[in-house]
């Protein structure tokens, strides 16, 4: 039986990818931010899963205003890094896991979540930056990412975005789907994007450290309570693009304690840093108790 072993949470700021691609990670501006991922890179080497299910948002890349799916699950065999306007990031092709992805799609739709099935798309920094942060630099030709990745793209571009409660419940449905897959696979669910930031208007640059850290506390200790926070609070307190944080509730909902009377997941690592470009960076690794 497949099982979810751990969840990882991280911001996916495009400038982080640029800093890695341009060899700037040791500059004084970036060094403290990357130091927060040293533990994580070793942990991932020691705990490489068979598959990563990556919850991220597409930034008007694969999905223009022609189509805006709320939840889109990738069932393709591979995904190319997208050209977001600066040219594609020089990182390896992302290989998918079509069998498990199709199984998750079927199971989750039968649990009343309408997923859009995607068999062809490019993936933008929302998906590739978390891989780079957790895996380090990879040569696009010689290297590969450490395991297949199933992309789950969530609309946080056009309002309204899915509620926190719906995201938490989707995570629960994903856990059931994974646990009903016969092959013995270790799966990690990664929730990405967010921590406070606003990219628009006179209010650009908003950072709310107190709110972000409270979010991290609640995500670990009281995810059900956190799932009740309305969108408007994210916007007022964490900036208009801070709404990306609802995606973290999908990964959290996939952890075993949410539905079962089990102990909270173990916090293996927690990190917070300001700034990376326009945003705060948050990062957590949670592991299900054995």
């Amino acid at each position, binding site marked *: 039986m497949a099982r979810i072993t751990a969840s990882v949470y991280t911001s996916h700021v495009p400038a982080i990818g640029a800093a890695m691609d341009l060899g700037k990670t040791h500059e004084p501006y970036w060094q403290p931010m990357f130091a927060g991922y040293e533990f994580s890179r070793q942990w991932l080497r020691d705990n490489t899963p068979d598959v990563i299910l990556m919850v991220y948002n597409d930034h*008007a890349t694969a999905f223009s*205003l022609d189509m805006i799916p709320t939840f889109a699950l990738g069932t393709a065999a591979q995904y190319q890094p997208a050209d977001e306007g600066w040219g594609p990031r020089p990182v390896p092709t992302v290989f998918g896991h079509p069998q498990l992805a199709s199984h998750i799609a079927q199971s989750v739709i039968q649990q009343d979540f309408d997923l859009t099935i995607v068999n062809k798309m490019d993936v933008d920094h929302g998906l590739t930056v978390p891989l780079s942060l957790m895996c380090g630099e990879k040569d696009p030709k010689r290297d590969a990412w450490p395991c297949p990745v199933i992309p789950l793209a969530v609309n946080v571009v056009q309002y309204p975005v899915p509620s926190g409660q719906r995201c938490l419940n989707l995570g629960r449905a994903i856990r059931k789907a994974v646990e009903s897959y016969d092959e013995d696979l270790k799966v990690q669910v990664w929730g990405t994007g967010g921590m406070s930031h606003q990219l628009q208007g006179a*209010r650009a640059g908003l950072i709310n450290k107190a709110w972000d850290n409270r979010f991290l506390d609640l995500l670990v200790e009281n995810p059900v309570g956190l799932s009740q926070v309305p969108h408007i609070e994210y916007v007022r307190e964490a900036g208009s693009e801070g709404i990306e944080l609802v995606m973290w509730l999908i990964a959290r909902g996939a952890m075993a304690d949410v539905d079962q009377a089990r102990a909270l997941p173990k916090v293996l690592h927690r990190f917070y840093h300001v700034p990376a470009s326009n945003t705060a960076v948050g990062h957590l690794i949670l592991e299900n108790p054995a």
Partner: protein
Amino acid sequence: MALEKPYLDVPGTIIFDAEQSRKGYWLNQFCVSLMKAENRARFKADERAYLDEWPMSEEQKQAVLARDLNWCMRTGGNIYFLARIGATDGLSFQQMAGSMTGMSEDEYRAMMVAGGRSPEGNRYLGEDGDAQPQHQPQGQRAGKEL
């Protein structure tokens, strides 16, 4: 019954809802076209001619030509889409976001290094924070001709 829009009183912020999306459809689709290198080259070679290939409003075209992202947003642009214009110009996301504040690039970067903009006074219209209309433009250019 009218839709509930509790986000209309957040200062310095335009939430990209269905109404904005409808207004900005062609502007944002133009931005998407800049994800192809050949389209970026064609746009750079003759911006006006390239814009005229799109059924955008004249105001939207003027806003793009002026590289005024706040103006673009008022006409339905969304920052994730508008970022393609900045990328075409070789700008970072920080340069783009900073350009919307009225602050200089250095002022904006310094604010971020110092921990970013405080939420205090910037949650509701009518408070007294630095993102409120009565404090615009911000930075050293405040009160000067922009």
